[in-house]
């Protein structure tokens, strides 16, 4: 596609339910990143994929968070047993990699609200 696509754009869920957030990167981009942006906060790094592998999972806040990537393309971020503090905008980015001097392109994000 023309850009990074994320779905859904908005998600309201009840505390304790599981949610899945999807990211479609730009075609051909091998590196994919997930971030979380809470109200008034910067972007918190969650996880990074190179191809289907996740060399760096250090940012995942707890074992309720997991992510996978299949076919070197689509990625899914899953949050189990959601809590109110999980409410945030979840952003996905992709870039051609592994080259640190290339820019990352961002999706519009998924706004998650846990009630």
């Amino acid at each position: 596609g023309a850009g990074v696509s994320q779905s859904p754009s908005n998600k309201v869920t009840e505390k304790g339910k599981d949610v899945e957030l999807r990211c479609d990167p730009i075609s051909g981009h091998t590196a994919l990143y997930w971030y979380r942006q809470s109200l008034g906060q910067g972007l918190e790094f969650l996880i990074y994929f190179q191809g289907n592998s996740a060399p760096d999972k250090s940012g995942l806040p707890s074992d309720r968070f997991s992510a996978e990537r299949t076919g070197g393309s689509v990625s899914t971020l899953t949050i189990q047993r959601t809590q109110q503090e999980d409410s945030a905008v979840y952003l996905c980015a992709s870039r051609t990699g592994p080259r640190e001097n290339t820019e990352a392109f961002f999706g519009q994000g998924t706004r998650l609200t846990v009630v």
Partner: protein
Amino acid sequence: AQSVTQLDSHVSVSEGTPVLLRCNYSSSYSPSLFWYVQHPNKGLQLLLKYTSAATLVKGINGFEAEFKKSETSFHLTKPSAHMSDAAEYFCVVSASDDKIIFGKGTRLHILP
């Protein structure tokens, strides 16, 4: 490990006056540095990037930044602020471990 510090969480300037948004970085490797802008309810957009070529980098909308290795800084400037520049600005570092690290952001307010 790399990190980014944006020294001001909020900056207010009058329309037509210069803008300075400060950023300091820490990196074990020779980093690439970026500035992104996020307008309200909009996605992140790249303003400019430094990738070890010229130390003075020009970006979109009249913004530029200068890489100063001795000061480990990459401050963003613009000679004359416009109302449409009101947004949140993020300084970003990327190094050979492929991680992309964001600063906490600086919210720029433009006063009429």
